[in-house]
């Protein structure tokens, strides 16, 4: 082994070990568990892929899968658009910019369960803030979480509120590395604002956009806390995500079946991550 290779191995070894121990082993163990029937009241037995067959005929599983795909599509899209606008504003020079940047981050700094609790108290039918405002201006109160669409949008709203600052900060970091001369040059050439944005800003910060997308999408696919707090998966299971669905089976004591839900969730998240990494062309960006 030559020296360079030796060093490379040495430097990556801790990370590889760390990832194997804390990520690879649990993932493989979960997969292994998903092949068993593991409930307390009958002896543990090997099922092969039977848990997955049961999963595919489980209506709640499909409902949860649909939710798990729709939720990131809607919420991440909104977060990216609003986050970009905020980042562009925060990138401009103005008085108290530092303070405004700090304030913009507050929702992200609030622990997500507490943020979710705040929204739950806003949406509550009887003494929620939203209905209080409605009744004060003479409108009838709305049962925000009472319909599938209402519950879905309420969750999207809460998620967008909390995580948009995160997107904005990442994008802001990207904006700051765009050389200002390019804009001045473009201005001299007579490029409009939207042209400057589309032809200069966006291509240059694309890797950063992909990173923000990647983080946010994976997070939104695994969404659990805000649903657990705000809707509990209701009404009628319409806002149950895959992670909440799997969690319920762990709680109910069927570890094999719960594991099979986790495996599917892992596969979805993994495929999305691969897709983004391919889109990001990180190899080129880094070299």
């Amino acid at each position, binding site marked *: 082994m030559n020296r360079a290779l030796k060093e490379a191995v040495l430097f990556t070894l801790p990370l590889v070990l760390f990832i194997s121990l804390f990520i690879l082993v649990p993932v493989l163990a979960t997969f292994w568990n998903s092949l068993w*029937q593991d*409930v*307390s*009241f*009958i002896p543990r037995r090997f099922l092969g892929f039977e848990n997955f067959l*049961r999963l595919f*005929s*489980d*209506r*709640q599983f499909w409902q949860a899968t649909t939710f798990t795909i729709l939720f990131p599509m809607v919420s991440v899209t909104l977060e990216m658009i609003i986050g970009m606008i905020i980042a562009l504003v925060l990138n401009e020079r103005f008085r108290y910019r530092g303070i405004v940047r700090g304030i913009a981050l507050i929702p992200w700094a609030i622990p997500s369960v507490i943020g979710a609790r705040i929204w739950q108290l806003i949406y*509550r*039918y*009887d003494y929620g803030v939203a209905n209080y405002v409605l009744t004060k201006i003479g409108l009838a109160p709305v*049962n925000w*979480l*009472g*319909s*599938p669409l209402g519950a879905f949008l309420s969750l999207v709203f809460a998620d967008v509120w909390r995580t948009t600052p995160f997107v904005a900060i990442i994008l802001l970091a990207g904006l700051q590395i765009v050389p200002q001369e390019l804009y001045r040059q473009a201005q001299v050439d007579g490029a409009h604002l939207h042209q400057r944005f589309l032809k200069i800003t966006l291509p240059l910060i694309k890797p950063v956009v992909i990173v923000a997308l990647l983080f946010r999408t994976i997070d939104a696919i695994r969404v659990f806390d805000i649903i657990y707090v705000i*809707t*509990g*998966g*209701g*009404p*009628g*299971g*319409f806002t149950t995500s895959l992670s909440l669905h799997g969690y*319920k*089976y762990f*709680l*109910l*004591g*069927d570890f094999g*079946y719960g594991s099979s839900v986790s495996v599917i969730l892992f596969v979805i998240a993994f495929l999305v991550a691969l897709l983004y990494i391919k889109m990001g062309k990180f190899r080129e960006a880094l070299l």
Partner: protein
Amino acid sequence: MKISRDTYILFVAALLVISCSKEQPVLTFAVGGAPNEVDYWERLIDKFEKSTGIRVDVMRQPTDTDQRRQGLVIPLKAKQKDPDVFLMDVIWVGQFAASDWLLPIDSCLEKSDVDINTFFRSIIQQVDVFEESIVALPVYNDCGMFYYRKDLLQKYGLSAPQTWYELVSVAEKIQEKERNKNPQFYGFVWQGAQYEGLLCTFLEFAHSYGGGLLDENGKVHLHRRENIEALQFMHDLIHKYEISPPNTFTEMKEEEVRLFFENGNALFERNWPYAWGLHERDDSPVKGNVGIMMLPKSSTGKAAATLGGWHIGISRYSDDINNAWRLAEFIVSYAVQKELTLVLGWNPGRSDLYDDQEIRERIPHIDVLKDAFNNAVARPNLPYYTQVSETIQRYLNAALSGNLTPAQALEESQTEIEKIVKAYHE
């Protein structure tokens, strides 16, 4: 953080001392609930230790029922010797017994002063018997009750309803009048959110319509006329008669329901017996104006109440079965059960306490409760009950929200449950 060598050695030495000094086995008693309840259990266990010389550790569990269950399932599944004695929600007994975690206590009972006939026979039969052995004993009982505002009924010259039909007409009348003063006023509040309490409420409606969860052969049979009628009625309470608030199916759990009623915003309430003590507290706006009785029934059926409560069991893996039984014996004794009733307001598991003079003075409606417990319907004792329940809750909730018709909801949950049953029977 850097730990000095000396600290480390001290720490290891301390561990060694602790582990060596533990010679005589110590019982572990797992109990949870509201903090004041657990505090009270600790005092009670102190008394037991002093009078018997048996050492007991109290394993404090959280208030949340699901977490309490998890806290027991994990050590039991791992065949740990602790906890030795624990309290179980009625609906866990089936799973715990089928998992072979509970010690049959028939032989203990034979040698003991505890007479099984002092408990409610129907409760013992529905909950505590597994494969013809007794595996648990009731510590306290619970069941769905009907609360009404005496003052409002009197004001409008109406009486408490015996049937659902009467309930609707009385509630509609009074709600309309009361709305003039209080626009938030509703006729009837009950538990409709997607959680275990919804299934309890549904079973009461279903049984009162002549339906239920199981058929005569003990098979799950949800999709039938009586159940559809019952679920339709629950739906109509919210959407057609509009005497139950629109957030019934999104937010109403027992505490939300209790507060709604207690703040004077409802005429009738379905809740567990604990609500009575709180309604009668000095700072309660409805103090002195609350009546309690069995729930109404359909015009053809009979009133029903879903059985709840907590039962005591001994772990199969306990390393000190004799002392574990002595602890259980202590907890179900007349004196301790009486204390639990007087201090915590629990409804005793033993039926002989319902004739105790002091308790009768403290809980004037005790005869109503006794009657209800004699007729209470337990939820099925299936080992996979929690999964069945979770599925049914989801469909019931979908029907209450109007996204499925009652017939659709019951038919689909029936199909789902058959799949669950099949998955565990092969």
